[in-house]
């Protein structure tokens, strides 16, 4: 028995076209899963799916905006219909709008929440409807929500983003306990990366380096190094390997947990 095998599993990865999501898609397909990549970035998403198919891995792309309830319904329906089920949902799509709390607007707030929080709520809702006993798939599953260390500790310039990730952290635990109590067979966990070398990771540095915050790239890098004992950003595949563990049956007794992968950021 190999509990890490994803051979008989169907996974949906939101925001899977680039960054951490794309690395998750790589890990899960390599472990044998059929992976549906969903994203608003159609060109990158299609290219990612083609690239994997050329390597004889199983993947397809669906255009999908996680802030739209109608699109969640139709995406889950399509995934189940085309692939005979849904076992894993990775709620990875997310955005960052950095800046000082005093400068950010209510529109910024609503935009971040519509993707980072409403997107995760809708994803869990429609996945649970499909995965729970009697649902269109009905064989339970594993849901992994991408939160962040910013959902656990404070950093300058990320107030709305961090609070959205805090909401994901708490919602994960509520869903996990509720689903377990009801015997759904659906596990729910959150993953908390520190800064990762992706387009969003670049945005984190830019925000810190802005004139109103630290004023220079060097100062921003210095702060990041002071915050991370390992003194470097994470790599997307380092997050993906943790997601793979949580997606697989190797983590069968893990639910409602928050796993950090942050080079020691939150340990001090």
């Amino acid at each position, binding site marked *: 028995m190999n509990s890490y095998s994803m051979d008989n599993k169907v996974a949906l990865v939101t925001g899977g076209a680039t960054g951490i999501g794309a690395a998750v898609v790589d890990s899960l397909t390599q472990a044998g899963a059929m992976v549906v990549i969903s994203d608003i970035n159609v060109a990158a998403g299609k290219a990612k799916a083609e690239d994997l198919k050329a390597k004889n891995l199983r993947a397809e792309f669906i255009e999908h905006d996680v802030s739209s309830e109608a699109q969640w319904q139709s995406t889950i329906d399509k995934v189940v219909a085309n692939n005979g089920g849904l076992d894993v949902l990775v709620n990875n799509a997310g955005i960052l709008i950095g800046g000082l709390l005093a400068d950010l607007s209510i529109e910024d707030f609503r935009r971040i929440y519509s993707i980072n929080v409403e997107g995760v709520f809708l994803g869990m809702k429609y996945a649970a409807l499909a995965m729970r006993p009697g649902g269109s798939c009905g064989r339970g599953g594993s849901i992994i929500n991408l939160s962040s260390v910013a959902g656990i500790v404070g950093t300058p310039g990320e107030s709305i983003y961090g609070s959205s990730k805090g909401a994901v952290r708490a919602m994960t*635990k509520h869903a996990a306990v509720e689903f377990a109590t009801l015997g759904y067979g659906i596990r729910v966990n959150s993953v908390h990366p520190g800064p990762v070398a992706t387009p969003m990771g670049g945005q984190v540095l830019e925000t810190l380096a802005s004139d109103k915050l630290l004023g220079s790239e060097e100062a921003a890098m210095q702060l990041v190094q002071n915050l991370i004992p390992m003194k470097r950003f994470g790599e997307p595949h380092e997050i993906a390997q943790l997601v793979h563990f949580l997606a697989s049956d190797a983590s069968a*007794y893990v639910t409602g*947990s928050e796993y950090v992968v942050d080079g*020691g950021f939150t*340990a001090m």
Partner: protein
Amino acid sequence: MGRVGGKVALVTGGAMGIGAATCRLLAREGAKVAVTDINSEAGEAVARDIVENGGNARFYRHDVASQDDWRRALAAVRNDFGPLDILVNNAGIVIVNTVEDATLEEWRRTQEINLESVFVGTQEAIGVMKDNGGGSIINISSVMGLVGGTIEAAYCASKGGVRMFTKSAAVYCAEQGYGIRVNSVHPGYIMTPLLTNAASTLPNAEEVVSDLISRHPLGHLGEADDIAYGILYLASDESKFVTGSELVIDGGYTAK
């Protein structure tokens, strides 16, 4: 090549329960495993079983409360297998007591086996790993290092100590650039000899166990393998950006 192929691992308390499951899984994934314990008979049996199944393992008698034993065991492992890559500080005991009835002797014994041993083992392992380019140290704490339990006062204190000691060692090693990662694992209640022995000291064992089950939202206790898989992740290079973190494997116990 397994997930920890070619690596050298030492697992304390490897004769039974979570430790034995960890030894078997690490061996299956390619590690050379030093099974250490005070229970020689059961420890030898685990090592023999691994070898019979095509793995690489050896038993060493090693009382984690003794610094001399630590040094002897580490030297012997180095000699037999080569430089140590993975240390799993798993040996532990539970003495059932409440804050009102625990004796000072019970308290000290619990800290000695569960906490002091983790300090000594981590310190000794850092000493050997830092010259070999690093390694992974995994300390087995418990959900009782995160939330309070009523009938295990001294145990809770020891496991909370393991949790914070782990973070301190992790940050230190990272800042020194040693390439040594240190993390803690927090199991919920797992069906092992530790649990059945502890329960057997109580007059209402059955009631206590069914109460424990009801505290895990997943509706059942865990198995030793559930914890071994988490330890394997932390032992492997897949977790190379993970240090100072807490891997909770508890069927939802602490999420509620």
